[in-house]
């Protein structure tokens, strides 16, 4: 896939904040500056628990997986959808439009979003994962094939930049930019666009994040390899509602 090569090179050439622009260009869509793109976004390879690379083809269909990005303590969902997810225009918290670059992988159906609710910051922790992707219709809202936050029933469409389908959230989840290496089938997380909430996230959970991830580490950016695993394995409770 030449797109991903372009993207990678572009990032190298132009530096960090350009990641999203590069993705939009690579996806063959009109160039639109993202409303927000994380500066100095790390580029990390996703690996499984045993340390080997997570291959796109081996990620199960309908996967509801978790990894930590861009910080050691900030969770992100990794999802494999039924269908290819084309690039979509969505609006951030200030109403500014940005281009979500769409799914990656051989079937363009692998997507990733911050697992921190845009409504009231509920997130996926070891103890409880409030945000999950499920294919079946949930009881609380009647929506299927969506990410639901079970605390206040916000529903996001993972196939469309996590735009809000229902509930109190007013803007999409931040999107993690993925890259797929067609030759090795590996997946990389390379950036983050949309409505960034990490300042509030750290403020709200400082105490528990320090405890779980370490005082020195919890707000440091990840690097190298990052482990991804099913939410149901990571968390004591992948909350259904």
């Amino acid at each position, binding site marked *: 896939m030449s797109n991903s090569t372009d993207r990678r090179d572009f990032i190298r050439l132009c530096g960090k904040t350009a990641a999203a622009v590069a993705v939009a260009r690579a996806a063959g869509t009109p160039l639109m500056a993202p409303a927000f793109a994380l500066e100095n976004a790390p580029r990390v390879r996703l690996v499984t628990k045993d340390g080997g690379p997570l291959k796109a083809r081996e990620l199960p269909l309908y996967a509801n997986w978790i990894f930590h990005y861009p910080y050691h303590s900030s969770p992100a969902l990794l999802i494999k959808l039924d269908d290819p997810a084309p690039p979509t225009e969505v609006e951030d918290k200030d109403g500014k439009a940005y281009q979500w670059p769409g799914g990656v992988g051989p079937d363009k159906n692998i997507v990733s979003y911050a697992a921190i609710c845009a409504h009231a*910051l509920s997130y996926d922790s070891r103890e409880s994962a409030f945000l999950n992707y499920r294919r079946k219709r949930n009881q609380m809202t009647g929506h299927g094939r969506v990410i639901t936050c079970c605390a206040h029933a916000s529903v996001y469409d993972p196939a469309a930049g996590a735009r809000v389908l229902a509930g109190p959230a007013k803007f999409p989840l931040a999107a993690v930019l993925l890259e797929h290496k067609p030759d090795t089938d590996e997946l990389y997380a390379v950036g983050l666009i949309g409505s960034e909430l990490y300042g509030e996230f750290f403020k709200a959970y400082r105490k528990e994040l320090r405890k779980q991830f370490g005082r020195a580490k919890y707000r440091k950016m990840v690097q190298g390899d990052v482990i991804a695993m099913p939410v149901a394995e990571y968390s004591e409770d992948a909350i259904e509602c």
Partner: protein
Amino acid sequence: MSDNGKKVVDGLGRRDFLKTAGLAGVGVAAAMGGMAAGSAPAAAVAGPLSRAADLPKNKGPRVVVVGGGWSGLTIAKYLKKENPKFDVVLLEPSAMFMSCPLSNLWLGGVVDVDLLLHSYLDAARNNGYVWLQGMLVQFDREKRRAWTTAGHVDYDYIVLAPGIDYNYASLGVKDPAVASTLAHMYPAAFKPGSEHLSLRNKLDDFEEGVFVLNVPAGNYRCMPGPYERACIIASYFKKEGIKGKVILLDPNDKPTIKAEGFLSAFNDLYKDVLEYHTSTTITGVDPHNKVVETEFGEVKFADAALYPRVRAARLIEDVGLVDPNSPQMEARIDHFFYNVPGDEHTYVAGDSRPMPFSKSGNTANTEGKVVAGIIAARAAGKEPKWESPNTICYSMVNTDPRESIMVDAKYKFTKGKGWGFTDVRVINKRSRQLAKANIEWGRGLYRDMFGA
């Protein structure tokens, strides 16, 4: 405020205004230093009512939000979000916030009290508004001045979100002295603070016998609250091995909300410790002999938390905004835009509203964002937009293991029929996972109201 009051304020000095408008009353006089009731004391004029409140100079349109509950806290925060130029003053007399939502969980020992307690200073500092610790005494809608126990405040917009008061006459208690006794001995514990602490102490002290709870008629605060509380106390009796029984008296023929979920909890979990009496209205209470009278006979109890019918906070009546046709003394306001008819500078929100929305935290929180949007739109000369409040409400029906049920609903207005529920979704099957979501529901909204 009444026309009468307005004229007086315009034409006469404040002291005369106090007298004529009758607002001085016993409370104000007493607060001013033990003056004789009924006469507006000269000292009062030199007191807080005659000086300006200590506030930073306003840099933009000032909005006074009266009441720091779920409604007022949300409105104050989202006014600033809608328009950072607003100068927002939250007027609330309590020294700290205590949450009524989730308080049943604390009563049952499921969560610590610090989950319910929050700082008004944090809320104000994190969200760029000012907390003024005081109570509204009266306000002049023409001059746009509010007199508070912390001084007077000139404003551009005022929002009243004072919550509820209890109507003890609904329990067959007409004598205010007996009502006061009842309120002291068997507090309802639906206005957070001392009432809740008192109920918790009662449960700690409870040895054996009947504990009476009741569901009030009409639209009351926290529809599932009495049923959830019955479950929580029954669960506590079971866990502690207390030889007690909860008797829940309900004027309705089934629980007013999440009926299936509550009834199966009553049946499956609390057969021996909980009696649920439907279609049963309390007609009288003898506090000293510990007897509740109903149409079907008397219930003798060891202890009780008696929940009278709810009315809008008395403040609404005191400032002349009550709808004379409202059985629960609620405010007369526009049902879509929350303003007093003909006055786009005065609003009422939260549990004093006349619309039959659920008087609950989630409703007040979602409504508060809408009200903030309405005021911001009008301040900018734009058309306001109505949006339905959202009622998301969890109830923990078991504490060991923790299991909850939930409902999610919105409201719509139909011509000829009035207000009704829409988009209702209920999960009546209790689950451990919903119990986690139940607690996170509260945490999330505390973050919303008190965090940045």
